[in-house]
């Protein structure tokens, strides 16, 4: 069985990446009132733009990432202006379907240009380090660092800037925010921009750690939804905590020898070791989500809009 420290490290990695995505998702979900199914694709956009800049313009990885992240934010804003803005008064389902169409659009434009096969950033081999009996590579350390730094940055943004306060007010109660004179549409633009940037960044980090392929965004969307809902829609801290929780549970769930758990609980004796196949990874977070939705509709940390 995997060591606890390895599980922890894997959980932190997954959690930090999910966290960046969940942050953006929970904000757009609470402010615009719908679950954005194209959110994962923003991550893919960021990753592929970075790749494009690296490969075609021969820019270094760091610069490419910065530019790609900003462009991802721009793409998100564009999508809002062209599509979601026109649906401000439409029923939630219309928004969801539109986001579905958008997700197909983005994913397959990327697939058409770069093909469906996985690509890699080819940044050379990562140096593995040993921490408390577990392995972590230099790449992973940077990923973790960047993700955590971004979250801290977001916290500062939310509390120390005027725009951040406006965003929080908007997330809490749109009508009230409007009454208080907050420029709703302008704030929404900023929310989408940040959402796009964070998603793009998460995409780059995920692609860096594994690989880029067009399905990258869609694969991750269920755990991201889970994290956002778990933490309570609109609650950014909840989203981050939810993300780490999901990361942890997914890794623990896979690493655990369930035959021992069954034995411990006294349900029955199971002689052979029992592991959940890795392919069921998403199923774990999904099952947690269903459990939470039935018993804790406002999430673990609570939110105004639980139902």
């Amino acid at each position, binding site marked *: 069985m995997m060591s606890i420290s390895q599980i922890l490290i894997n959980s932190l990695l997954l959690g930090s990446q999910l966290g960046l995505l969940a942050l953006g998702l929970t904000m757009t*979900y609470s402010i615009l009132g*719908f*679950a954005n*199914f194209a959110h994962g694709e923003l991550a893919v956009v960021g990753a592929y733009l970075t790749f494009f800049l690296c490969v075609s313009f021969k820019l270094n990885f760091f610069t490419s990432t910065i530019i790609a992240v900003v462009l991802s934010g721009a793409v998100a804003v564009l999508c809002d202006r062209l*599509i979601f803005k*026109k*649906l401000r008064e*439409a*029923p*939630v*389902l*219309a928004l*969801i*379907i*539109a986001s*579905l*169409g*958008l*997700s*197909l*659009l*983005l*994913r*397959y*434009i990327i*697939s*058409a240009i770069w*093909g*469906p096969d996985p690509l890699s950033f080819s940044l050379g081999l990562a140096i593995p380090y040993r921490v408390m009996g577990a392995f972590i590579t230099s790449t992973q350390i940077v990923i973790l660092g960047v993700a955590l730094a971004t979250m801290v940055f977001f916290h500062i943004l939310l509390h120390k800037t005027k725009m951040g306060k406006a965003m929080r007010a908007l997330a809490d109660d749109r009508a009230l925010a409007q009454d208080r004179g907050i420029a709703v549409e302008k704030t929404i633009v900023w929310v989408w921009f940040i959402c796009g940037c964070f998603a793009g960044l998460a995409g780059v980090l995920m692609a860096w750690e594994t690989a880029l392929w067009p399905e990258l965004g*869609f694969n991750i969307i*269920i755990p991201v*939804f889970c994290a956002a*809902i778990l933490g309570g829609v609109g609650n950014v801290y909840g989203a981050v905590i939810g993300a780490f929780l999901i990361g942890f549970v997914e890794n623990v769930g896979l690493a655990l020898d369930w035959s021992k758990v069954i034995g411990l609980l006294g349900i029955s004796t199971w002689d052979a070791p029992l592991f959940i*196949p890795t*392919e*069921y990874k*998403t*199923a774990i977070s*999904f*099952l947690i*989500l*269903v459990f939470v*939705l*039935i018993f804790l*509709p406002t999430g673990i940390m609570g939110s105004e809009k639980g*139902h």
Partner: protein
Amino acid sequence: MEFYDIFVYFATMIGIYSILSLSLNLQYGFGGLVNFGLVAFFATGAYTGALLAVNDVPFLLGIVAAGMVSALLGFIVALPTSKLSVSYWAICTLGIGEVVRLFLLNEEWLTKGSFGIAGIPRPWEDFWGDTYYSFFYLFFVWFFVGLAYLLIWRLSNSPFGRILKAVREEDDLALAMGKPVFIAKLKTMALGASMAGIAGALYAYYITYISPSDFTPMITFLVWSMVIIGGKGNILGSIAGATIIVVFYNSTRYLKDFLDFPAETLASLRMVAIGLLIILTVLYKPDGILKEKEKRYPLD
């Protein structure tokens, strides 16, 4: 002869997808239930039908069983999710679709995993012989399309259909008017699921080889675009939508002879087009190309 084969193939697939489209229209168009995991019911029906046929169970029984197993799944899915908001329903059902696919992929003892089930026998193949078989099967599929059509038409014009119409928009009102909303939703999900399951069995019997990769969320999204574009709440619209999408989706396969793009790029571009079509429909023609029929009574 070749053109005839292509036509029959298209028509048969349109038939199968029409049933899927009708099943989703029942759940969403009439019932307002957002099912993003439709492919799960399609797959369940296909695998049930296939496994039974491979084990020499009579085909009609296989189809009925496919419908029932899918209905059971639909019922189970609806139990926790019926009381949730639209977004949550969507996410939940999407997840369920994926869980089913993962199950099909992993439980090799039952489903042969990624190898899939091959050599599914065709119903009454010997009886009809090679020349007439595809023609027979076309009618066989469309017989079920007709059944589905009748079923939804009857239900939508009945008091049950009225409850669904109200539940679509105003749950609370239906409750206040003494209607068992939750139970109605359960029934609708189960019924829609069984239709999708039957479509699955028909698909398995036609294609004769199925594997988990046939049942990705893409199928769900394609059927959604059929219902959205064809018109929700309009039964003919579901068939129209199925026709449009199936023809479009498959015709690019033949277009590559005319267009100078690699097949892969063309495959991606057609999905881009479908995504764009969905967005445009939601923005500019939210009711689809065929609107829901109005219900007017004569004023005595």
